[in-house]
């Protein structure tokens, strides 16, 4: 099939507007190449003859096209033990504070959102097994969620390439993975069972509420894609997903103080995290 014709500035804006309304992600002129490449990919994949016919298909959500487009736009590259200083902070400070008010045997909920292909929630599970002496004394539930339903399937499968494992020692790889071939490994079944995956859209208040409340949320490197007002909505949703006293970890370049006044800043030796105050609005 011929290549679809170039996308005009007006078409580019209409698509960005659609993405923004749907996900809160903002793409400006400087991301035009990135956006255009994905639009053309979807035009080709759907066999549409023009942007107009593709856009009609998208707006009517024909054969789930809206979800497919969103999947094409999410950035999913990550690796195990990324920003491990936050994982250290989790086991040295955050969990100690959380369990101070909890009897042993109680549930302890950790949410990785967005979790992409699962590296982060599985990293949390491995880190707890390796570094948290209370791991058998609490009913730890780790949930991984993402807006991209395709990556969730990959996460559930638990198959990873060399690049994803680059930060793990050979001992950890041998302990928690089974080699499939030269370049891929599958996470062992018990670890797969220890993480539950579900879809979540940070902008969808009703859907976010349905996920319940967590002791600790990892929400790293996603709010940077949002504009100010979407960021605030996402932050308010996340606030409601924390138990009072619960913590949220953002990416190291992100700051909640610039987004929302709801949270308190907590400086620990390994990371800066944000807390939903025990008593608050």
């Amino acid at each position, binding site marked *: 099939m011929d290549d679809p014709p170039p996308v005009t500035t007006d078409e580019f804006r209409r698509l960005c507007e659609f993405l923004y309304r749907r996900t809160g992600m903002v793409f400006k002129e400087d991301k035009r190449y990135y956006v255009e490449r994905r639009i053309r990919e979807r035009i080709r994949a759907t066999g549409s003859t023009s942007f107009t016919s593709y856009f009609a298909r998208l707006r009517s959500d024909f054969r789930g096209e809206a979800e497919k487009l969103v999947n094409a736009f999410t950035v999913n590259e990550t690796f195990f033990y990324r920003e491990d200083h936050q994982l250290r902070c989790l086991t040295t400070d955050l969990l100690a504070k959380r369990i101070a008010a909890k009897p*042993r*045997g109680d549930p302890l909920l950790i949410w990785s959102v967005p979790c992409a292909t699962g590296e982060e929630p599985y990293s949390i599970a491995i880190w707890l*097994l390796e570094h948290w*002496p209370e791991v*058998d004394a*609490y009913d730890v539930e780790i949930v991984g969620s993402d807006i991209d339903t395709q990556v969730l399937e990959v996460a559930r499968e638990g198959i990873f390439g060399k690049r994803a494992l680059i930060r793990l020692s050979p001992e950890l790889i041998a*302990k928690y993975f089974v080699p499939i071939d030269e370049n891929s490994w599958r996470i062992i079944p*018990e*670890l797969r*069972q220890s993480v539950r995956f579900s879809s979540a859209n940070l902008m969808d208040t009703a859907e976010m509420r349905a996920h319940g409340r967590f002791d600790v949320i990892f929400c790293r490197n996603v709010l940077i894609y949002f504009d100010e007002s979407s960021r605030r909505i996402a932050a308010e949703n996340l606030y409601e997903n924390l138990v009072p006293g619960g913590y949220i970890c953002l990416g190291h370049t992100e700051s909640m103080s610039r987004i929302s006044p709801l949270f308190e800043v907590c400086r620990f030796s390994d990371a800066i995290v944000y807390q939903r105050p025990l008593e608050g609005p």
Partner: protein
Amino acid sequence: MDKRILIIDDASLVRLYYRDALQRAGYSVDEAMNGLEALEKLLVTPADLLLVDINMPKMDGLTFLKSLRRQPMPLAATPAIVVSTEAAPQDVEAARRAGGNFYLVKPLTQDTLTRYVGLCCGIKS
């Protein structure tokens, strides 16, 4: 050493944590997610020692132990360590009445676990 330990706990992270310690210490390990699954497994393959959590769905640890002790010999005599976060004297007594031989309170370090498992296996042999 060819001792076979069955870990009965609904939390997969806990099973993984205990299994890692025991396998490194040379035991062969099997796992069950609740008392019912444990009984089914034991009817097929006996174990030398059981690690039994109390709070589990489908069949909790105490019900499991009572049911185990009513099975034919030698299955009924399989030694069991109850491993629980509950540490009050009445919990220990309830576990003993249900048929638990030993009682350990979580959290356990991997060293503590293998030390007690070693002691219990020694007692049996």
